[in-house]
């Protein structure tokens, strides 16, 4: 095991622990905090994949977004909610479905021989990403920004409620 792999496991373990925390925590706020752990570790994974730009974006976007999530979790749930109310009765089926999916996907990923697979990480510089984003992918980029704006406008309209209500 190379030392890069050691670093990978050091980062991957908190990712998975955080994710398990998100789906099993008895408290919504704890769940949100676990989500932060998981998301930040994913940023670490991005750095391992030499996608620093995306890692920073991840930290920037989710640092704020998750805080908002925490706030909502605090607002919308009574602090000492009954633990049972967070999980539904379909828990075993959910576990079954998730387990089955995991088994299938891991099996197929490990067994597939990816065409064109290289052994090392190809560093893609931010200039390349920027150039590509604003030339080849200019239209999707504009559409994405439009979607973002429409979504935010919609969110504002929804959250404000109708006038005179």
């Amino acid at each position: 095991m190379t030392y890069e792999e050691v670093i990978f496991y050091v980062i991957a373990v908190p990712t998975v622990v955080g994710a398990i925390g998100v789906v099993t925590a008895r408290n919504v706020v704890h769940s949100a905090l676990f989500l932060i752990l998981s998301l930040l570790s994913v940023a670490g994974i991005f750095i391992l994949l030499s996608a620093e730009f995306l890692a920073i974006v991840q930290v920037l976007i989710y640092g704020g977004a998750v805080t908002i999530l925490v706030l909502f979790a605090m607002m919308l749930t009574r602090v000492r909610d009954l633990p049972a109310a967070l999980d539904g009765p379909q828990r075993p089926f959910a576990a079954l479905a998730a387990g089955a999916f995991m088994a299938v996907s891991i099996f197929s990923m490990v067994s597939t021989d990816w065409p064109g697979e290289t052994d090392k990480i190809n560093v893609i510089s931010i200039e390349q990403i920027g150039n590509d984003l604003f030339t080849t992918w200019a239209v999707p980029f504009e559409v994405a920004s439009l979607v973002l704006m429409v979504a935010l406008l919609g969110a504002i309209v929804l959250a404000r409620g109708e006038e005179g209500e």
Partner: protein
Amino acid sequence: MVIETRPPHESDLETIDINVNVGPQHPATHGVFRMVLTVDGELVVDLDPVIGYMHRGNEKLPENCDYRQVIGYHDRTDYLAQFNTEHCYVEAVEKLAGIKPPERAEYIRVILAEINRIASHLMFFGAFGTDIGLFGTSFMYAFRDRETIQDLFEEVTGERMMYNYFRPGGVAWDLPDNFRQRCMQVLDSVERGVEQLDGLMMENEVVLARCRGLSPVTPEDAINWGLSGPMLRATGLAHDIRRAEPYSIYDRFQFDIPTGKRGDVYDKLVVRLEEMHQSARIVRQALETMPEGPIMAEGLKRVLRVPAGEVYMRVESPRGEYGVYLVSQGSDKPWRHKVRGASFSNLSALRAMAVGNFVSDVIIILGSIDIVLCEVDR
């Protein structure tokens, strides 16, 4: 630009209102006042004032004391305006006993009471600055000048806080020799300091944004709530007991009664600031015309026995109408001794003034009342 908020509707987000206990141990409650705020987010929807943590029987204890011993309790009722409260009490006793104090004693009382008013308002500005978040700068400015005033009082009475200097029939002893010169000196430096305080607080953009238009009080409401002092005058009513019902020798001096226009927090600051200048004006006039002569009325007995009867005496203390109600049955002790504290009446309007504002505004509305908890709880 104005952001509209509207009354809560049934279909609105049902957040849980939380109760926040502000006080009795809280930096902004000026002592051990406690208010239970019901807040909806940052908005205060209800306020429940709780008083009584400072109750020491300041009205009942004097009923077991000789008339001259009572003076000390009045120092402790409003510990920021000791001379004003002492003044009220000794005038009440004199009125009941029919004692006429000598001229010089009257002048001394007026001078000290007016300087005390300046000191009290300085304390207000210091504490108000801290309430509004000034990190102590206004506090230090105000206390620099308040210290010089206290030095002056110490030279006169030998005390810095509980002066116990006025007596029924006069004052305890005469002023020090260079008092007139010292007093002028103190007044000059204090008025310079007040100008600085003016510059620091009144033209500060943040103070303007916070205080202007905050919780305006109409004159009608002010009368109905029983407000007095700067709280009342800020609404535009020029009611000052020194002018409306002159006691002592206040009818001899020229002074103006500053009033506000809207009764908001900013007007309360303006009124208090201007009152300091007016007090200084009265003191200067009194120093000019102060006669020499005795300082104690002739022929008072060692044990003061007051004829049976009752009296209500009120004065304009820095916080408003301070009143003493005395019933005598002819003994050497008051049979009934009741105090009307200005802070107490002003504080009773807190709920009406504060509800519907933000938490931070409630703090400065409370600060603008200028309560002294000893006077509220007595």
